[in-house]
């Protein structure tokens, strides 16, 4: 197992390198000048002298590969460079913002799993029943409904019309009531995906020979489904958590914008508007690295859950 983890970590090195290269190469495609935007005040316009100075100070006049190595160095130093806007280390801002995203993502994930797993199981067991049809229709709507639209409708209904929940904002450091609407918005679409997955893996599992074998032993349906089928069907669902996480991060861009949730998605959008390149690159890189490690963890979890793989990697 340890060997497997080390192996995986070593394999990560080239990927991480490519990831930094991709994140950085975003700089290549810049039209326009970030200095211009950074230095444009609320009044409008930027001072041309200041713009030139800024370019030199930020090393934007240097050859692109030097800029890359400078950036790599800052990554190794762990600060990911300094924001054009605040002049502070990018990593500080990202960490404080990621905290908010993570909070939201976890609650969304919980909501999503709480809805999707029972629903997926029931749908599979009672295939083609009313409950199956309804939940599958719901799941389809869930994946098809753009979450920005859903978010707006939720605000309109629950916050503005009914006044039950806050419209937006982070509240007191991201308290629960401020989290409900964005978490539901984020969670439902991933719930939709997970429900479908849960149902299909469950369907696949209950048609396996070993399920028949379990029935042939005289086990009750509850044991057959709850023990024999579920244990197998949950494995792919667990691996979906990694993908789900990416899905939540993606969704956070839109959802955080709508709900003014000060997470990394909103930071990204803001940084793009502000052309804060170190911040954009930092966000992209950070999110990628997080995602890589989440997937690594999921893989390890997966090998742990599935004895077929667990014992192969042991040898």
């Amino acid at each position, binding site marked *: 197992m340890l060997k497997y983890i080390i192996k995986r970590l070593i394999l990560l090195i080239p990927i991480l390198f490519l990831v930094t290269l991709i994140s950085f190469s975003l700089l290549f495609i810049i039209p326009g000048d970030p200095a211009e*935007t950074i230095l444009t005040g609320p009044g409008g316009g930027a001072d041309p002298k*200041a713009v030139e100075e800024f370019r030199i100070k930020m090393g934007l006049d240097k050859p692109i590969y030097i800029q890359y190595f400078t950036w790599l160095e800052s990554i190794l130093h762990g600060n990911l460079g300094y924001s054009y806007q605040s002049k502070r280390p990018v990593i500080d801002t990202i960490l404080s913002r990621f905290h908010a995203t993570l909070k939201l993502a976890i609650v969304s994930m919980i909501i999503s799993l709480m809805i999707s797993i029972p629903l997926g199981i029931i749908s599979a067991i009672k295939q083609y029943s009313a409950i199956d049809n309804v939940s599958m229709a719901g799941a389809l709507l869930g994946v098809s409904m753009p979450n920005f639209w859903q978010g707006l409708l939720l605000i309109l209904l629950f916050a503005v019309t009914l006044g039950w929940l806050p419209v937006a904002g982070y509240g007191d450091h991201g308290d629960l009531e401020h989290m409900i609407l964005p978490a539901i918005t984020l969670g439902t679409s991933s719930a939709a995906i997970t429900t479908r997955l849960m149902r299909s893996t469950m369907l696949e599992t209950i048609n396996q020979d070993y399920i028949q074998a379990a029935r042939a032993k005289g086990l009750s349906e509850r044991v057959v489904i709850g023990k024999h089928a579920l244990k197998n069907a949950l494995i792919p669902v667990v691996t979906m958590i990694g993908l789900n996480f990416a899905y939540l991060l993606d969704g956070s861009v839109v959802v955080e914008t709508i709900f003014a949730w000060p997470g990394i998605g909103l930071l990204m959008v803001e940084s793009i508007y502000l052309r804060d390149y170190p911040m954009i690159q930092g966000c992209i890189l950070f999110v990628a690295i997080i995602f890589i490690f989440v997937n690594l963890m999921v893989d390890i979890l997966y090998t742990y859950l599935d004895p077929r793989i667990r014992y192969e990697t042991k040898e």
Partner: protein
Amino acid sequence: MKQTIKVLGIIAVIVGIMLLASMPTASAKLYGDANVDDVIDEADMTYVEQIIADNEEENELADANQDGEINLLDVAYIEGIILGDKPFPGGTITVAMIFFKETVDPAVGWTGWYVRKAGIYETLFANDENMVLTPELATGYEQVSDTEWEISLREDVTFHDGTPFDADAVVYSINRVLDESNSRHTEYDFIESVEKKDDYTVTITTEEAYAPTIASLTDPVTSIVSPNVEDLGTEAAGTGPFKLVEFEPAVSMSVERNDNYWGGPVKLESATFEYITDPQTRAYMLEAGEVDMARGIPQAEADIIDGKSDLDVISKETLRTYFMYVNTKKAPLNNVKVRQAINYAINREQIVETALEGVGGVAAKSVFPSVMPWSANDDLEGYLHNQTEALSLLADCGITDTDGDGVLDYDGSPFELTIKTYTTRPECKPTAEVIVEQLKEIGIKARVETRDIPTLREEVAEGNYDLALYAWGVAPIGDPDYFLSRHFESTGNEAGLTGYSNTEVDDWLDAARTTFDDKARWDYYKQVQEQILEDSPEIFVFYLNELVGLNTCVKGYVIYPNEITFLTKDMYNTA
């Protein structure tokens, strides 16, 4: 099945608990406002006396000292409040603001604007709500020579951290701006040195004669900071009416009353700013009662919000002018008559009515809105919507519908114009779209293209545009030189974009910059305003209105047209 019901039940319980937790909590009351007119003044003292005399009915607010009894002590207490000896029961305000910064250091970029809005920092001079330049931390100034300004300082001021305010602090603060590492130091290049003359006098020496010197000290980048703060990025010690309590980047900033404010008693006890970039969300938060005030509410929501009994919308013209650069290097826009024709073709009232929902702005005459003391609008005629005039001007330049297809032709092909603009300001796109419609009405084939700001800037700089709709704060420091010399002096950066050059205008601007007599300066600037209107290198569309939604319980709020000052010592909340 049973299991699912259980799970659903748990979800329902959790959601229920969440809902219960979200119930609003009660807030403060204006104790002392015995006659409930939302101000505390002598009338309240009289009113309490009347209550004691049983001529008026008791009420809760009359118990100013909150000891449970209404007696003469309350009269004295109210007097104390009026005199500033007793704390004003001003409560707290939560505001949904638009922008935020990752730092609180006023000398970094335009962070000064944001911390000033929170009432933390102050400058030597400031513009009041009528854009009149007034001393703030200075008591006045004296021009020693063309290049030497002696500024005398207040002697009764201390910073929030207890450090006394003096010439050293001023020299320290301004030198932070002049430092090479400051991204805005080039704007203050005209200053040669800042020196302490004595404890409460500093001398600013400029490289050459520069009339806007004093006005430039109103920019919050020159906020005076305490020299004893370790990290101005996360801590703040200014002289303003409010002290920083907590700052969570991108989320919120909270401030509390500065009990030692030199400007007199501060009514509000504390305030919280929540940074919400989305205008719709700000409006909803205001309506839902999550905030007491919301800056920059969407124009489409203004009526709805104003229509609510507990909410008000205050609006006021700001110094933000929306205008179009005209590419005067490109035919036929190089012809002044064509530019004038476009000016006539634009129906500014209609733009305000449609693109701005009738509340978002005021039709522009020229560059400066009328709230600006230097505005010559009263003496200018401007371009009133006149399609006939527009068509005849165009005809003069040979632009007519030669092939009878309803589209004007220039040089054998349809006369086409593209308006380029950007989307970060929500007014730009609809405005451009309406202008396009208006140009179409007189037969110009027009269309809108949007870019993001850097791309647009680049295209404009390359001369790759016809018309470019922009928004500028035309006089953030209240001095006309800032905008006019950039945009209309041949050497000005922005004039380079339009290609505008007029030696007369150059002369006037130069003269105005080195003249210290306000009357003489006004004459020059009036001439400039007349001339650029005539030459139309830029087409002025409208002046943006600031729309602030607030709860009727919030008192004392005034909109400052320069969008710099927001929270003041006079505001309070009666809720």
